[in-house]
């Protein structure tokens, strides 16, 4: 290889890598701003789009803005419930789709993809149309939000658990059966523990989808206010800086879970 070619190769390699890192920096810029603004002291100014000075007050008085912490609690409550329901139903469905033959299996495989490929505004307005047509138009609230969240989380749970389940080495189950384990013992001692990481990943995914959803929720929430709806409403009056504290905390918790998970799986070779 000639020297010139090697130089060009070196530049080519590093230009691509540098470009990639620039793109990542672009993706992180808003998060850095959110973190920075969580320490912004804007008590003397109504301009919420400039950094005026450092303060801990947003962190110590997180719940000062009216209704914000209630909305966070509501989002956590809905997220937890939706996650439990979607994870259970989705895991059962994933087992059916991977491990059992039944009529309509291929149709179901298609149907579970559709919610992930439909625009949220259309799903949200369809669901609202259903609620109104069936006389629940005046009773939108906790239950209708929950129904909507389970609906859009289900597909993601099914796909995630399915991926884990179909990658499973069935020889392990055969081995357990050969060693006289009954079918249920095999399931609980072999199959389930092996699928569990997939189920856990699905649960985390559905909690974060539920916690963050705005478009579908906004149409079906009635008078209830989830955290994204609070932020949306606050935007019209000027967003309280404490919103950035919640954003920062969300980011750090998720990062901790993902990094912790990576460390844990790295220790024991799968």
């Amino acid at each position, binding site marked *: 290889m000639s020297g010139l070619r090697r130089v060009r*190769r070196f530049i*080519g390699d590093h230009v*691509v*890598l540098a*470009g*990639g890192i620039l*793109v*990542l920096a672009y*993706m*992180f810029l*808003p*998060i850095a*701003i*959110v973190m920075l*603004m969580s320490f912004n002291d804007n008590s003397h100014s109504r301009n919420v*789009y*400039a950094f005026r000075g450092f303060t801990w007050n947003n962190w110590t008085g997180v719940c000062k803005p009216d209704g914000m912490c209630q909305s966070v609690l509501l989002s956590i409550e809905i997220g937890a419930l939706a996650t439990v329901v979607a994870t259970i139903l989705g895991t059962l*469905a994933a087992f*059916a*789709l991977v491990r*059992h*033959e*039944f009529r309509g*299996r291929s149709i*179901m495989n298609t*149907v579970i993809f*559709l*919610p992930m490929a439909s*625009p949220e*505004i*259309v*799903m949200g*307005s*369809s*669901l609202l*149309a*259903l609620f*109104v*047509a069936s006389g629940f138009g005046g009773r939108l609230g906790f239950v209708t939000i929950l129904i*909507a969240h*389970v*609906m859009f989380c*289900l597909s993601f749970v099914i796909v995630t658990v399915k991926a884990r389940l179909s990658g499973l080495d069935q020889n392990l189950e055969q081995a357990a059966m050969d060693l006289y384990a009954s079918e249920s013992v095999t399931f609980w001692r072999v199959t389930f523990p092996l699928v569990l990481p997939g189920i856990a990943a699905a649960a985390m995914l559905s909690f*974060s989808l539920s916690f*963050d959803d705005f*478009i579908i929720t906004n*149409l079906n929430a009635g008078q209830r206010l989830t*955290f*994204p709806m609070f*932020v*949306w409403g606050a935007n019209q009056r000027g*967003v309280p800086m404490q*919103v950035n504290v919640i*954003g*920062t905390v*969300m*980011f750090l918790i*998720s*990062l901790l879970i*993902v990094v912790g998970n990576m460390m844990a799986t790295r220790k024991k070779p799968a």
Partner: protein
Amino acid sequence: MRSRRLTGYWLMLPAALWLAIFFVIPFYSLLATSLYDPQGSVLTGYDVTYHFHNFVHVLQDFWGPLWRSLWYAAVATAICLVVGYLLAYAIAFKAGRWRNFLLVLVIAPFFTSFLIRTLSWKLILADDGFVVNSLQFLHILGSDGRLLATPVAVIAGLVYNFLPFMVLPLYASLEKIDHRLIEAAGDLYASPARGFLKVTFPLSVPGAVAGTLLTFIPAAGDYINAQLLGSPNQRMAGNVIQQLFTDTGDYASAGALSVILMAIIVILVMMYIRVAGTEDLV
């Protein structure tokens, strides 16, 4: 273990019912809503009067936002494809042992709320902010030029918010490419550029198709970026649908516009898949 037909049914049933009742049937409700007599209201109830005129009237009134939805989403998807390809390629081929770490960084923006991230773009692009000032200094923007409340800001927001949906499928298909194929191209005297065009890129097309769909569809339905970063002049179809449903209570028009948006997206997606030639996406 593929046994006992009935077990499969029972395991599938709850999820299937949930999706049938709360995902499939609502599309019929939406279609019915779009044919409501516009005279009705939430309180007095609506009648399905096969009022096809709703569609005509919605197209007349809102073809601007509808067109903008498709146009903004297409531009944002194209930018995502270029930028996302660069990032996915860098992670798949140049990152070495940092691969997994960089992948976590790609999904990390999802860890904070969509709305909060979009609001922070409002600050980045603000009128007296760093970006606007530098662009004014470079005379790319006039001295009273701004980015907020322009299509540029809305499209930038869309690109930012949906970029990971492009990067992940692209990465998945780039990562699977056998490096020996690219080396073989080099051994046969193909320049790196030619090797990329003839080997790497064609093998990554399925990822590019999946990525463009995953970016275009949510972007065309989005209204958060248009609302937070744009002005009423940048209203997209989503803004109008949301407003008609929650503020105006004009369910008939909102339903009709939703149906039209969905129909256009389905047709575009089908045409696109046919042209791109990958039927085995799912």
